[in-house]
């Protein structure tokens, strides 16, 4: 794992600013430490030599100033970390959302996971910028400065530090290599065990149904104990690396102290230089130790950034490309009544053909149902028309072939209705700058949503409506767009899957009415009521059976 990803600097300009500020802070920090150690030793040596405190007031002032600068630097690092992390998070967030928008149909394994990664997940940058990077910068800036000062004050002590310091990372890497195998072997078992309590709480109602809830105590105890034994086995090794770090640091201080002490006796080193070096020695190791200690805390931040960078850098996936590259057959009959024209459309998912060579023409006034077993690719056909799903073959909507223009000429409601926070009316009139209440009411009525008031609020996660109501409001949204913009094509995906028969009848009536108005309606459905009302039923068979 890289401690500092160049891609992060490339995508987030704030990160570069942060490093610049950090370098200045680290420089101030190094100088303050030197002033601190030199003024303190001057005070101690002076007082022991018999000087009065009043005669040393210059050094007292220097010392106080050094302390204040150190405090300011500590405060500055904290502020810079928070500000830097927040600024970088914002930049990455906006870039990631823009990237997602460039290919709206890109298949995301879990929208919730993606939203967490782009939203709250970036909070993990805080420890990375606030605690890890400062120590990394300090290691690069402060440590060499201090080592140089020690070399000047007492070359032998400096030599000890120069020899021991590089050993620390070497040891860490060695221990890391040795322990990695152990850690990885245990990791899967650990995550599994750590989830057992969650499993138990989640499955409690199932356990109660079967009268097993009273037996769980012994099981938790056994599981948690197993978890403890395995975790301790891992920790014994994990803690070794910080043990070695700490031991190396304190033994070097001891080595320096003893060597200075012995040389003070024969007078080959001065008391002042000796005390100065003694005060500096622990400071030399501090940033290195902290880098090690914070590395795991920051790993989360690095992972968070990398998840988002992966979204940003992912290649665009626009369903329109293939269609543009293969324009519609010029010899095809041009017919003003044709609203939707699919020619030789093939769709592949994960390399597996889902739809193969589909030809489909919808004319004005037609209500066509798309049927077929689930998994045959019915929704993918709608996705291809919308330009969300990559496909081969030509698709035109109202004579237009590129994806954005196709979307301009149709209204659509997907299988999983997505409502946005706001009111029902705002959702129904989505994308219309000036909604008309009457149009909204009519759309709701036509979508059999008389049980939903336009002013009803919808929560951040769709709270406030039942599943069926949500579906119907999404349909009302499509009807609203269709009418207000006077579009020729309506696409619906399983509009009545969770609807009772009475409301289904209303909806079917609406669809027939739209066809009568001269629009084309393509609806994916299994429901007998919908299939019966359709002028035609086009069945898509699973490709594997067709061959």
């Amino acid at each position, binding site marked *: 794992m890289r401690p500092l990803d160049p891609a992060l600097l490339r995508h987030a300009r704030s990160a570069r600013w942060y490093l610049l500020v950090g370098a200045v802070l680290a420089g101030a920090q190094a100088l303050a430490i030197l002033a*601190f150690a030199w003024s303190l030793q001057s005070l101690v040596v002076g007082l022991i030599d018999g000087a009065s405190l009043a005669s040393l007031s210059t050094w007292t002032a220097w010392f106080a100033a050094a302390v204040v600068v150190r405090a300011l630097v500590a405060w500055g690092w904290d502020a810079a970390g928070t500000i830097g992390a927040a600024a970088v998070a914002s930049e990455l967030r906006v870039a990631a959302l823009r990237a997602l928008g460039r290919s709206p149909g890109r298949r995301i394994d879990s929208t919730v996971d993606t939203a967490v990664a782009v939203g709250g997940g970036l909070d993990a940058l805080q420890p990375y910028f606030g605690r890890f990077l400062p120590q990394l910068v300090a290691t690069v800036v402060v440590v060499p400065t201090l080592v140089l000062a020690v070399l000047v004050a007492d070359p032998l002590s400096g030599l000890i530090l120069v020899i021991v310091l590089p050993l620390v990372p070497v040891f860490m890497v060695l221990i890391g290599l040795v322990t990695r195998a152990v850690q990885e072997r245990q990791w899967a078992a650990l995550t599994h065990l750590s989830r057992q309590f969650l499993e138990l709480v989640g499955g409690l109602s199932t356990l109660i149904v079967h009268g097993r809830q009273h037996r769980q105590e012994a099981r938790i105890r056994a599981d948690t104990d197993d978890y403890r034994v395995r975790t301790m086995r891992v920790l014994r090794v994990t803690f070794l690396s910080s043990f070695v770090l700490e031991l190396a640091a304190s033994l070097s201080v001891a080595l320096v102290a003893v060597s200075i002490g012995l040389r003070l006796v024969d007078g080959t080193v001065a008391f002042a230089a000796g005390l100065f070096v003694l005060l500096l020695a622990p400071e030399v190791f501090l940033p290195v130790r902290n880098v090690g200690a914070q590395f795991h805390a920051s790993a989360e931040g690095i992972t968070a950034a990398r998840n988002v960078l992966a979204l940003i850098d992912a290649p665009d996936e626009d369903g329109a490309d293939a269609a543009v590259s293969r324009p519609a057959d010029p010899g095809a009959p041009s017919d003003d009544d044709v609203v939707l024209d699919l020619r030789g459309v093939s769709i592949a998912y994960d390399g597996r053909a889902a739809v193969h060579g589909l030809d489909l023409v919808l004319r004005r006034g037609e209500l066509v149902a798309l049927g077929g077993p689930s998994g045959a690719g019915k929704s993918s056909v709608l996705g291809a028309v919308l330009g969300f799903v990559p496909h081969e073959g030509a698709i035109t909507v109202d004579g237009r072939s590129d994806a954005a223009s196709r979307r301009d000429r149709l209204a659509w409601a997907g299988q999983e209705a997505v409502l946005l926070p706001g009111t029902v009316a705002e959702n129904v009139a989505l994308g219309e700058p000036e909604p008309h209440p009457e149009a909204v009411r009519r759309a709701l009525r036509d979508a059999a949503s008389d049980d939903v008031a336009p002013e009803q609020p919808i929560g951040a996660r769709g709270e406030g409506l039942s599943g069926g109501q949500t579906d119907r409001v999404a349909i009302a949204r499509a009807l609203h767009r269709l009418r207000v913009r006077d579009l020729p094509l309506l696409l619906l995906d399983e509009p009545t899957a969770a609807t009772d028969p009475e409301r289904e009848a209303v909806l079917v009536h609406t669809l027939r009415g739209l066809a009568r108005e001269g629009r084309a309606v393509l609806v994916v459905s299994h429901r007998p009521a919908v299939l019966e009302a359709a002028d035609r039923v086009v069945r898509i068979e699973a490709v594997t059976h067709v061959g």
Partner: protein
Amino acid sequence: MSAERNRSLRLAMPPARRFALPVLLGALSAGSTIALLAASAWLIARAAEQPPILFLSLGVVGVRAFAIGRGLFRYLERLTGHDAAFRQLADLRVGMVRRIVPLAPDGLAATRRGDLLARFTDDVDELQDLPLRVVQPVAGAVIAIVLALAGIAWLAPGAALVVALVLVLGLLVATLGQGVLSVRAERRIAPLRGSLADAVLAHVQGLPTLVAYDAEGASLARVADVDARLRRARVRAAVGSGLAGAAVAITAGAAVLGAMQAAAGPLAAGALGGPEFAIVVLVPLAILEVAGVVPVAWATWRTVRRSAERVDGAVPEDLPAGLPTPVAAPQQLPAGTDGPPLLELRDVRASWPDLAGVGASHALGGVDLVVRPGERVLVRGPSGAGKTTLAHVLVGFLAYEGSFRVDGVEASEVDADRLRERIGLCEQRPWLFDTDIRQNLLFARDDADDDALLAVLDRVGLGDWVRERGGLDASVGERGALVSGGQAQRIALARAMLADFPVLVLDEPTANVDQERADALLADLLAAGADGRTVILISHDRVDPSLVDRTVVCADGRVPAAT
């Protein structure tokens, strides 16, 4: 509130005997840190007086010993501390389960709304930070610091007093000041963080919709707006949050200067030797290094306290209204020798407990229903009509008013566990444990052998599926990720059949199943499930009438008496 909070926090604290060793080791490690600086300061200051080298040997030995001791004790402290905390985790979890079992499932927000589940269990596990990251490091540091101050006091009492005062003052400013500032900042930031998460989630989930309705730009602007407000709040808060680090640095300087002032007099008067003076002046630096754990522990304490509040909020001490209360002298159900019992519901009313974090639920306002032994009854009604409420009343998850008799005995007077031996439930979202299929079936009847399990799987139509996947050892994945909604229902039915409930309630078994597979699933469930049992099927969907004996309609929480 504080008594409430103590309930969870007490569960998290290990007993003293388990706790003493890590605290002692922590004190030894912190003490070594201080002693290392004291010994090396003494060694150098004493050596500067150029005594015979023999006089230094004690210092040399001390420096080396403390250097090794510091790392070694720290390593041992971390190991023993984690071990103690993990041992306590078992007690903590068991104690928590004892508290939540009487509430589950309907009185516990975490089991009613899946998204609260992970937070609840994380909160419970986070309570173990109380011993590990709050009490133990602070206790070790305090012991070491008190001893160090005592040592300074032995050399120069005035200096010890000054250092102690500066230390207490500095830590107070660092912890309390930072606490106040970050509480205020958090209060401003937390809601913004929530709105940002919501805005991002709405944007990502609604992206296809937003694109299809030309609304992507507007949504992006909304996210950017919340983001900017959050960033401004964070930047404002950052100005205050660095206070702890700055205060510790200032305190260290002040302690050194104070000790110097106080010890300068005795040094000049000859009451204090040079090497001892060096110790008195420099040891405060090490003391402050050790004391640095206090602000960190304080911040952790606030996190732990919030977790404890959430846990206690999620697990009310008193049974909330709507849950059945345990029966003191339960009645026995008549021994059911002749098949399933007769169920008689007269004007049954019930409602869900009102829980924080769980939205309004649908109440029953009067159900009249008689189910004769062996009958297959469909309870149909739109979503929100109270059908699941009815199911939960039938299995004793929810309390009811009115009368619900099982073979003539009032169900509320029967021990709920006994009631559930007669009436079983296949939940709408059956929980599959993240293990293999065998374990997911065995807990329903643990003496069943593999042949019996496979036979049951055959009857629920999963036999081929299980064999294709390599038999009973096949994993179902985390939260049943490797299993479809229909298969999960079939597994739940297999469990119910293993448990051999005389009455089986199926709650929306086709809710998460493709329409075209739903009919086949229902036919299989009813064919396999009925088999001499009473089956109460609850569904918002129309069901092939030939599959059931009778259909009743549930609307607005009511099932009218049969005419």
